[in-house]
């Protein structure tokens, strides 16, 4: 993996933490960079609500999302294990995982995945969620990739916990509930866009996100704007050819 790209990633994550912090955008950034930097094929991130129930917040593609949900519903899988025990969980060849996770293993291989790693998002004794990394070929994550993943997860964990002390459940609740509702807004917008543009959910998500990135906007804000009719669905396809920087979008506003 490119060292420069790794440095860029940490700078990007740090910038997101310092400036206008948006949980959804931050976590999407994280899962995308994981896929890019760690030579994995998909990533999904789950956060726990204060009941200890894991909720999907960001995935690198729609397929993975379904898988994470599957995990939750059936109460099994590497992410759940990593969250519960607080240490990393791996399986290098999912065709041999049926005894460990009967339903998850089958669903994962059906989806084309051959190997999985799950890292808990942990700060001292508190586990707040987990990151799931999937690969389409069997094998283990090499040492450098694993350590990089751990560092990215640590940055993300610290970022999420930054606003408050771990004892203060209230800020966690505010943050998580807001992120979950933003997720629903995004799903509603995906449906709307999918119908109007005649594309699937993946394509709808790409249109929303492409527009958000192109104009340096929050994904959930774009979703709201499309639902409210302030941004036209077909406008989503007309993004600038290069991303607009913060300064540009302020000038255009």
């Amino acid at each position, binding site marked *: 993996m490119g060292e420069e790209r790794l440095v860029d990633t940490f700078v990007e994550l740090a910038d997101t933490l310092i400036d206008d912090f948006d949980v959804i955008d931050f976590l999407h950034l994280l899962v995308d960079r994981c896929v890019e930097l760690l030579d994995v094929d998909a990533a999904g991130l789950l956060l726990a609500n*204060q009941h200890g129930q894991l909720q999907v917040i960001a995935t690198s593609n729609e397929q993975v999302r379904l898988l994470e949900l599957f995990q939750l519903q059936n109460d099994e899988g590497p992410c*759940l294990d990593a969250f519960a025990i607080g240490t990393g969980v791996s399986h290098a060849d999912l065709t041999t995982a049926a005894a460990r996770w009967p339903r998850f293993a089958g669903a994962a291989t059906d989806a084309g995945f051959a190997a999985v790693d799950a890292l808990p998002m942990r700060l001292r004794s508190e586990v707040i969620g987990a990151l799931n990394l999937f690969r389409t070929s069997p094998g283990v994550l090499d040492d450098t990739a694993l350590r990089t993943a751990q560092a990215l997860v640590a940055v993300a964990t610290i970022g999420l916990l930054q606003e408050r002390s771990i004892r203060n*459940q209230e800020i966690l609740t505010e943050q998580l509930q807001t992120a979950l509702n933003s997720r629903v*807004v995004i799903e509603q917008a995906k449906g709307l866009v999918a119908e109007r543009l005649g594309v699937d959910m993946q394509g709808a998500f790409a249109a929303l996100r492409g527009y958000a990135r192109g104009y340096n906007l929050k994904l959930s804000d774009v979703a709201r704007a499309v639902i409210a009719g302030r941004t036209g669905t077909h406008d989503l396809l007309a993004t600038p050819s290069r991303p607009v920087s913060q300064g540009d979008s302020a000038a255009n506003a």
Partner: protein
Amino acid sequence: MASSDYGASRLTQVRVWVTEWAASLELPVSVWLLCETAVFRLGVSGVAVTMDNAAGWPETRHSTDVLSARLVELQVTVGEGPCADACQAGGPVLVADLDSPAIQRRWPLFAPLAVEAGARALFALPLCVGTIRFGILALHHIEPRQLEPATLADSLAFAALALRLLLDEQAGLPTTDGGLPLHNPQVHQATGMISAQLNVGMEDAFARLRARAFTDQRPLADLAVDVVARRLRFDPTGETT
């Protein structure tokens, strides 16, 4: 692994509390009864449910006491406060002490007036499903209070139940004990698609989806899968494929 059942179990418990209270008064379950139950079970000074009126301003739909309603009015009058912030963010705003310097800086108009009126803690829980917004479940307390984890969990459960009662009312469906799969992304995707198919807002789209599930006696999640897979369309002229 107790955890994954905990949230659902709190919602079930809250439903039981409200149903029992209603039964003891020989009244149907209602949002007002939910507020009364919440005061007792959460040990807070008062509870209100606000809903946006036609002009887009929050109005008190139910309140358990004068101060609850007053706090809503104050926020509308000065145009700021935890309820407005919660509504905009789509997530809770939990204020343990309205008299703290940070909070007074955050809402310089509202916070001092609220303290003067007798409130010290305020917890604004939005009642919304994405862009489908009803209003706020607002809990206040006359002393500073940081909600204990169990109380916070139950507060969210009361909000979740209030949301379901309001959704049932909007869909014209009887309130059932059945779960509403609001964690399921395909339900929301289907809502979005129906919104475009019928050219209606998300509220109406969701109500139509629910009504169809009820009529067909099918689980909502299954119907949503069909909509997303484009096996089922909603047609403005009448009924569907």
